[in-house]
């Protein structure tokens, strides 16, 4: 179900669900209700485009951060009237939603916060900014330069000022600390859910785990549901501890699987494997680290956490390889699959390092899948996944 499918039978949907896992099934509907109610209560909606966006600053401004990344093939033809065809589908789909007006969250957004990450996004934001209020943070790209963090911290500070000016309020350190605690709780819970996949067999499929990812950050009612889900699933792992699982365990890396673009994950799991770890922006990458709650300067602590996100736009992006090593040790995959959205240059070029790491250091079979949102190559992708699994787990 994509953004446009948020239906209108609220009373039905608001009733509490006994099963916390089923609760996360209707994510877009819940987000729709939450954002609509928040807007009615006077809270601004702030659209975000990336995991570099510090959610805490937006939450401290009493605004609702909503991810606007598009995962629908249907909005791409509209986008291609303006954008080049040979551009990443995530960028085209996001912009296509803007042109077609089919994303209510984008329509509601009082402001969009974006960053200078990849060239495609950066230039698309200029076009989006022609008709939407837009604040762009400049992200320095040299990962290990000390002055880069100082620069980024200043950019985050300017975002705080911009939100204060736009929404006519003061963001205090106490506001920031409250937001930090909320986001740390959210990250911690999602991290613990993801860590359940270390079990053999894992209590969920990768696809089920992805359902726990919401497009809205800091949605408190969901956090209690995470707690219940954790209790339920932890009990489940105790029951299945002796079950023999002959599915190959997959470490998935590369581009994010934004809402609506989960096809490759489904193809992998329908081929008889289970994705135990997702090192991408919709998986573990942004939730591995928390913001230091004890730092005397909460804004600097927020900037530091976000700056260390190991994204392929950074150079060198050695942090990503470190994460992959740690995930391989903790989740014990049988193979590594890397997903690249077509024309995503930074991830595509970086795949050279990932392949080398997988094959030469981790000694795991590696497969790179390059595709877009159109399902026409599903059979071909499946053949490659099956061949990889035949290689990874020969009988």
């Amino acid at each position, binding site marked *: 179900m994509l953004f446009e499918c948020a239906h209108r039978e609220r009373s039905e949907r608001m009733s509490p669900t006994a099963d916390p896992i089923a609760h996360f099934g209707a994510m877009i509907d819940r987000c729709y209700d939450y954002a609509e109610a928040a807007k009615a209560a006077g809270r601004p909606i702030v659209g975000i485009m990336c995991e570099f966006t510090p959610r805490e600053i937006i939450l401290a401004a009493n605004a609702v951060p909503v991810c606007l990344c598009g995962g629908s093939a249907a909005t791409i033809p509209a986008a291609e009237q303006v954008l080049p065809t040979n551009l990443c589908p995530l960028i085209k789909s996001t912009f296509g939603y803007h042109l077609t007006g089919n994303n209510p969250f984008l329509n509601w957004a009082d402001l969009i916060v974006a960053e200078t990450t990849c060239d495609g996004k950066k230039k698309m934001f200029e076009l989006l900014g022609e008709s939407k209020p837009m604040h762009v943070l400049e992200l320095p790209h040299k990962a290990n330069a000390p002055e880069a963090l100082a620069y980024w911290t200043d950019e985050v500070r300017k975002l705080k000022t911009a939100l204060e000016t736009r929404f006519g309020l003061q963001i205090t350190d106490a506001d920031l600390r409250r937001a930090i605690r909320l986001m740390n709780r959210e990250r911690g819970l999602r991290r613990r859910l993801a860590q359940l996949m270390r079990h053999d067999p894992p209590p969920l499929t990768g696809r089920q785990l992805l359902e726990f990812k919401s497009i809205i950050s800091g949605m408190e009612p969901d956090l209690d549901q995470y707690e219940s889900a954790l209790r339920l699933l932890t009990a489940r792992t105790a029951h299945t501890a002796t079950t023999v699982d002959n599915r190959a365990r997959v470490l998935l890396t590369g581009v994010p699987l934004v809402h609506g673009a989960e096809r490759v994950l489904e193809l992998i799991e329908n081929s008889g494997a289970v994705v135990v770890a997702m090192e991408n922006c919709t998986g573990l990458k942004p939730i591995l680290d928390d913001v230091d709650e004890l730092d005397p300067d909460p804004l600097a602590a927020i900037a530091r956490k976000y700056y260390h996100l190991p994204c392929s736009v950074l150079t060198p992006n050695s942090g990503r390889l470190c994460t992959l090593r740690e995930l391989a040790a903790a989740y014990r995959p049988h193979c590594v699959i890397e997903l690249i959205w077509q024309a995503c240059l930074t991830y595509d070029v970086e795949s050279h390092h990932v392949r080398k790491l997988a*094959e030469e250091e981790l000694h795991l079979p590696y497969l790179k899948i390059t*595709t877009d949102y159109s399902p026409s190559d599903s*059979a*071909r992708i499946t*053949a490659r996944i099956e061949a990889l699994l035949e*290689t990874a787990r020969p009988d």
Partner: protein
Amino acid sequence: MICAGIDAGSRAIKVVLFDHARSMVIGRGLADQGVAQPRLAEEIFAATLSKAGIDRHQVRSVVATGYGRNRVAFATTTITEITCHARGVFHLAPDTRSIVEIGGQDSKVIRLENGGRVRDFAMNDRCAAGTGRFLEILAARLDADWSKLGDLSQQSRQPALISSTCVVFAETEIIGLLAEGVPAADIAAGVQNSIATRVMAMAGRPLTAPVLFTGGVALQPGMVRALATTLDCPVQVAPEPQFTGALGAALLAARIAATASTSSP
């Protein structure tokens, strides 16, 4: 024990019957692929059996592979082309370290370990650049028969430079070259080089010799030379290169039949 492998490719369906007691191929069949895939597979399988004088119930197991593998209703199981080609090649030439397979709409590069196990592989994405499809388009553009293209390419003095990124772009280039009066032989040789270049880019690294060339495109004269020149290493064409996948499938079918008989009560 008789087992069968059926390779339902994008352009042709190939059948191999293998007698494991005598360790030899006892039947082969080849038919054009089409719309009614399940029926076409059934027909060529039946025809191959009857030509070999084998009754269907004598066939212990059938492995289907290839792009249409899931539409072969009578298959015991399916195994991907990668594993089947590797198995077939290991049987034919056990020293092989790299396989280049170019079929109707696929191309793959498979690297093998000692003992014939797949080390890794690469396969073309959505685009048919670097596959037999490109040769078909060329044949149509040159008004030539597919089977004559190879001979034509042999007459080339100066192969034309043709892009290897996209078949549609390349077709536009061919039209341009024809308009400039470039000889058809040079265009044909240029297309073969373009396919070889694409395959090399797909492999992403130098191939370890010995390299064996399989798939229907290996039958075309000139193609092996283009590949050897581009890869800068000797390349051998597999015996009956179209049947490598089906042969591998038939060999793997024996293992499946053996597993099934030991696990049954």
